[in-house]
Each structure stands twice: as structure tokens, then as C-alpha cells.
């Protein structure tokens, strides 16, 4: 039963990593604040079910919508200003920290003590959410939007000269990735049945980004597999106690040295997700 729980948590994490992969792996913008969108999804849905007994099937989309809307709040000013990728990562980092402070001080969210919600995320919800996310993301990245995102990642200037509105395309990418993170957050909150602002900080954002980089840029399956490993590995290594974190760090270092392109950089594991037109090796 414990293993099943760990696996389900890993699945929840996979959805968030999938979301960040759209933004970082395919559109080429780095983010150190995507945990904030997970947090918004978690709190928006959690507050709804906790305070107003809203049914889960309504609270879940509400969490996704809240994450999506908040992505516009941070995305419109920063992406319009055409902040370079690293500056954008810092801007969104600030957004994430500001959000944590808000969550800690609102009475609605029960402050830093955290919110105890009901355990509503059944395995069916989690697996269904993951399957839905995978299919929708695959379709989206296969569509003209995915092609535009990859063009922006490869060369923003040439993409603009090919008639792509950089601002709108990047904002759309951020929105989609935030909605997926919001879904992950809503499922997480109602799986753990307890959420705290400190769960959605820079540490969590970094872990999401590490999964995307280690899994491989421009890949769906790579980051998703790595997300599973990164969530379950610390649990499997629990017997090693204090050595868990060094082992995790060692794994990251080994990936950087032996597979700098990540597990599946610019490739996919199966034909299910393979984009024949994104084929290609690292030059």
C-alpha cells in the first residue's frame, strides 16, 4: 500500500513536470517558480472543498483555472517586456516567493499552519488526470502551437521573422504549463489531505526544473520518466536515511556528466509521443 501511495504521488508530480516541460523543454524559457502554480492549484481547489464543500470535480478545474489566470498575471508584464530567459526565471522566482508570503498570511488559507482538506484524489482521479494530461499535451505539442514553440526555442529572432508573435506564443505556453501544474496541485492537495505554503517554494521549483533538464529538453517521455524516478527514489532509499539526499545529488551529477542532453533530449521513448518532425540529434 505504501508503494502504491508513492507511485501515485509520483504520478501527480509527473503532471507538474509535464507542464514545465512544455514551457522549458519546448519553448526554451527557464522557470524557477512553477511550484507557485502547483501551489495555486492546490490552494484554490483546497479552499473550495474545505470552506464551501465544493465537489471535487468542480474544485479540480477551478484549481487549474486559478493557476492559469495567475500565469497571466506574472506572464503578461514579464513576457511583454521580452525579458531574456534567465531574467524571466528570476522574475517568476520572485512571484513564487511573494505567493508563499501571501499564503502564509491569509486567514482563508489558514496561514503557515496549513490546510487540512479531505482525501478526495482517488487513484482513478490521479491516473485519469495523468492520462488526460499526457494526451492533451501530446496533441498540443504536435499542433501548430508546438511547432511554433520549438521554433522560438531554436531561434527567437528567426521565429519572429517567420511571423510568430513572440509574446502571445510564449504567454500561451506559460498558460498551458501553469494549468497542468494547477491540475497537479489540486490532485496533490487532495491526496496528501494537507497542504502548507512551505511545500511550494524554490526547492520544489528547482526539483521540477531538474526533472525537465535531466529528462531531456524537447521531450515529453524523458522528463516524465525522470519525475517518476526522482519522486520514488528518495522513498526507496529511505533505509539509507541521511544518504538519500547525497544519492539524489550524485544521480544529478552523473546525468550532467554522462548525458548532458538529459535522459531523452529531443527524443521520445515510444512512437506514441514521437514527433517525426522534431527528430534529430544534438549537433
Amino acid at each position, binding site marked *: 500500500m505504501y508503494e502504491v501511495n508513492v507511485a501515485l504521488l509520483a504520478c501527480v508530480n509527473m503532471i507538474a513536470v509535464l507542464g514545465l516541460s512544455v514551457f522549458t523543454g519546448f519553448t526554451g524559457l527557464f522557470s524557477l517558480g512553477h511550484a507557485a502554480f502547483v501551489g495555486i492549484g492546490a490552494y484554490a481547489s483546497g479552499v473550495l472543498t474545505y470552506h464551501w464543500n465544493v465537489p471535487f470535480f468542480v474544485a479540480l478545474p477551478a484549481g487549474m483555472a486559478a493557476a492559469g489566470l495567475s500565469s497571466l498575471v506574472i506572464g503578461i508584464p514579464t513576457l511583454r517586456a521580452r525579458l531574456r530567459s534567465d531574467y524571466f526565471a528570476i522574475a517568476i522566482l520572485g512571484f513564487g516567493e511573494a505567493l508563499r508570503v501571501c499564503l502564509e498570511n491569509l486567514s482563508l488559507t489558514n496561514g503557515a499552519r496549513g490546510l487540512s482538506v479531505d482525501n478526495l484524489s482517488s487513484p482513478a482521479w490521479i491516473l485519469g488526470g495523468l492520462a488526460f494530461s499526457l494526451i492533451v499535451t501530446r496533441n498540443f505539442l504536435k499542433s501548430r502551437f508546438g511547432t511554433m514553440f520549438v521554433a522560438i526555442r531554436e531561434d527567437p529572432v528567426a521565429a519572429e521573422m*517567420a511571423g510568430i*508573435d513572440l509574446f502571445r506564443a510564449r504567454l500561451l505556453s506559460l498558460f498551458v504549463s501553469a494549468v497542468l501544474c494547477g491540475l497537479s496541485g489540486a490532485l496533490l492537495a487532495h491526496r496528501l489531505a494537507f497542504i502548507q505554503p512551505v511545500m511550494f517554494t524554490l526547492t520544489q521549483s528547482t526539483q521540477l526544473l531538474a526533472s525537465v533538464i535531466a529528462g531531456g529538453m524537447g521531450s515529453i517521455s524523458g522528463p516524465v520518466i525522470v519525475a517518476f524516478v526522482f519522486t520514488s527514489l528518495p522513498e526507496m532509499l529511505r533505509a539509507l536515511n541521511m544518504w538519500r539526499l547525497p544519492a539524489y545529488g550524485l544521480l544529478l551529477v552523473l546525468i550532467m556528466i554522462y548525458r548532458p542532453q538529459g535522459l531523452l533530449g529531443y527524443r521520445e521513448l515510444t512512437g506514441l509521443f514521437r514527433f517525426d*518532425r*522534431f527528430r*534529430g*540529434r544534438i549537433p
Partner: protein
Amino acid sequence: MMESIVPTPLLKVRDLSRSFGGIRAVDGLSFDAARGEITGLIGPNGAGKTTVFNLITGVCRPSAGSIRLNGTDLTGARPDRIVRAGVARTFQNIRLFGRMTCLQNVMVPLLARGACGPFIAFFRTPAVRGEEARARAEALRIMAETGVADDAERTASTLPYGRQRRLEIARALACFPPDISRSRLLLLDEPAAGMNDAETRELAATIVRVREIFDVTVLLIEHHIDLVMDVCSRIVVMERGALLAEGTPRDVRNDERVITAYLGRPRDARRQQKTQEPQKTREGGRSA
């Protein structure tokens, strides 16, 4: 100040200026590009030719002056709007989408102006598939006309240099929306750079053919002077950001200021000049 320099101008550039810090990269430049013709833009290195392209395509904003395409003011407009108005370009240092296939590279501009919204893209409806199939067919047609169809499935970054340049031309041609057939301006920034003579001749033939098939007006930056003389009907010569000379290839070839800018002055002529106009002697000795 100037009305039309050529009979039917598609592109009108007037008093265009752009400074970077204290350097006036483009300094009060005015010229026209005649509709349906190939106009050459030449000048010594650092004359500001690529900056002119960057100003026309909206990569950077002009400090002063105006750019009009077929009567529409494009001065300082957003790059993607300028593309929609009918301006497409290639780059001096190749800028392909390296990890995409060649076909994908050409499909990007076609898909960028697609009609399908994000929501239906999530569900891969028949409309999405149909739009993709049309873009694919159109891209293959353009690639066939520019001679890169054989490379359709290859990853763009693995192509040899010369064919990367051709692929850039194909991608630029894909940028033209179908409804603006009368105002298509193609900007080619040193398309023959790094090509040998045979490749350059082939490229010249491609440029001429592309102009006819796609009904485009071409503005061409090039250092291969033979290519420029062969394909251009008018030539604009720039030096230090300003217009030096303008006219037919024959006019320009015989223009003394142009010869001086490229080759410097003959020694005896320079001495002669020195006695006549002492203030102009500093121009001598500049090389192309």
C-alpha cells in the same frame, strides 16, 4: 523631399537613420525598390546594409525616417506585423531552426498564420489535421521551387552550408500570405556568402526564377559583385550609413565614387585630387 526614384516603387525608404550609441549606422538613407524587380544593396563592410534590413523587418526601430511598403507605413512596426504585410528575409549568419527537419522549417511560417485556435489543438480535430496537411503540401511545393525538396526529412543543422542558405530562402518565401501577391518583398542578406562560383551561379538562377514564380520584389545584399551585376536591375550603393550612388548596374560600375569607395583612388589621381579638393583626400585608400 524626394518623390519616387523609380517608376513603380514597392518599397520606399525615406531619410532612414539609426544610431547605436554614438555610431550612426544608417544616416539619412533614402531609396526605392521597384515592384517586381531585383534591387541590389551593396557597399563596403560596415556600411550599414544589414542594419537597413533590420530596420525594415522591425528587428530594431529607426531613430528617424520612414519605411513604406506599397503605401503602408511600416516604420517601427512589430516584426510579425511586418511579415504579415509582406516582408520576408534571410539572415547573413544563417538562422535556421536547427533541430527541426527542413520541411518543418518551411512549415513554421505557414503554421504561424494558421487559423486553428489553441483549444481545438488539444484534441487534434480534423480541422487541425487538415490545416497541417495543407501547410505540408504548400511547404513541399515551395521547397521544390527552390531546389531543397530532397532534403525535406533531414535535420536542418546537418545540411551543407549552401543548402542551408537555400532552405532559408524557402522559409522566407513561405512567410508571404497568399492574399498580398502584389506586395511581396524578399530581403536576401548575402545569400551567396561562402558559396563557390558554380553554387553562386546556381543561386543567381534560383533568385531570378523565384522572383517570377512567386511574383516577389527582391532586395539583395551581396558581396559577389558578379552576382549583383547579373541579376539586379538597379543597385543602391551605401557607404558609412548613407547613400553613395544609385542606378543601373552600368551606371554604378562606372561611378567614380563607387570605385573609390571599393578600391580606393589610383595614386596619381589621388595626388591630383589632393591639389584640387584637399578636404576629400581622407576617402582615398578605403578598400571593399
